[in-house]
């Protein structure tokens, strides 16, 4: 069989190479255009994400269910109407039936509009209530976050300072991360068509401010701090030292960093 190394083939190859060389300037222009799309925008100068480790903690016994944090977050982050970056759940546990031998009755959970505007009185009569409390919920800042594990393109990630963020300019909107989050803290933003979630008010904490929900909370139910740079009489350190804390759904292995104190077993 004669080889394919004929004059015809050689000329074809040379033509191919020439075309490739001529395409280089066009390629460079494309690259520059693409780079412009991903250009750096103005951000707080001098902030080094490797020097900080942010954490939020929640004291369930301090939450009064006013819902001001939900409103504060909506205003701070322009969160769409039916979506929530943070929300409050009300748990009402009824008394067990007399003689049933049970320690508690049924559990009713509600979160009307995420708790925004506060809670109307529960429909369950006061005398039937064994105990009731409010639980604020938000992104649990997981160490083994299942959401960033399943993102197919690298649009959601754990930042070096401990915040799980979504790059809305890179997200393709597949929704895998929303399905993978066990805590229900993610949603599909109807305007940007990308995944969206609590960012721990990254744009505030990088400027030395506190997240909006922490700022507005009237009862210190939300405690925030930098684990790497505790301030004088740091509320976060005090909270961790003085309380027995736990994370939500620990059995799933997501290693949620957000600490809750005063949780009941009924809280999922």
């Amino acid at each position, binding site marked *: *069989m004669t*080889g*394919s*190394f004929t004059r015809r083939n050689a000329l074809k190859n040379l033509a191919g190479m020439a075309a490739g060389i001529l395409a280089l300037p066009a*390629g460079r222009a*494309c*690259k520059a255009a*693409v*780079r412009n799309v*991903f*250009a*750096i*925008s103005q*951000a707080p100068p001098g*902030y080094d*994400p490797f020097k900080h480790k942010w954490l939020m903690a929640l004291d369930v*016994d*301090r*939450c*009064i*269910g*006013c819902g001001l944090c939900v409103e504060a977050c909506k*205003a*701070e*982050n322009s969160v769409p109407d039916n979506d929530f970056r943070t929300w409050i759940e*009300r748990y*009402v546990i009824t008394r067990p039936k007399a003689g049933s031998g049970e320690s508690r009755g049924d559990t009713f959970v509600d979160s009307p509009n995420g708790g925004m505007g*506060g*809670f109307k*009185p*529960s429909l369950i009569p*006061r005398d039937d209530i064994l105990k*009731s*409390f*409010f639980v604020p919920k938000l992104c649990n800042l997981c160490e083994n976050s299942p959401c960033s594990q399943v993102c197919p393109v*690298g*649009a*959601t*990630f*754990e*930042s*070096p300072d401990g915040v799980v*963020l979504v*790059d809305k*300019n*890179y997200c393709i909107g597949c929704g895998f991360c929303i399905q993978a989050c066990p805590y229900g803290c993610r949603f599909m933003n109807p305007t940007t068509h990308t995944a969206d979630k609590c960012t721990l*008010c*990254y*744009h*505030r904490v*990088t*400027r030395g*401010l506190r997240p*909006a929900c922490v*700022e*507005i*909370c*009237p*009862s*210190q139910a939300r405690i925030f701090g930098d684990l790497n740079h505790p301030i004088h009489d740091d509320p976060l350190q005090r909270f961790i030292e003085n309380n027995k804390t736990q994370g939500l759904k620990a059995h799933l292995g997501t290693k949620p960093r957000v600490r809750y104190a005063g949780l009941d077993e009924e809280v999922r």
Partner: protein
Amino acid sequence: MKRLLKMPPQITRLVLLTLVIVCIYFGARHLLTPQSFGQYGHYRANALQEIAAREPFWAGRNTCDACHGEIVRKLAAAEHKGLSCETCHGPSKAHVENPEVKLPRLSYGQCVRCHEASPSRPAWLHQITPVKHYTGSVCTECHVPHQPNEVP
């Protein structure tokens, strides 16, 4: 080289086609991957700056201290010390930037929002049933918001 050329034409054609496809892939990857990708991890490092570039909405308690230090000190000494100014007074950034801009008047609703009694609220909170406690609409008749233990 001769041995390579002696391979059946099916194989040489397919190998050539594969090489072309692979080259196109790596070329596209080089051209289209954002520059800051992979810097800190499998994501665009520039995203951190883009997310942090958003303008904050709430001014924050510390900004009020600059001009209203008196009130902030009174507040810090009493039961409402944990409250941020904007919790009751609302978003104040406009006022910080231009003190001529006045904030809206506060109302009865603001106090009731937190202090209305509910079986779900913890015991340490002072709670009232509004209809039983006071039929008017001005809580400040009997209470001083910045110093709740005082009377006006």
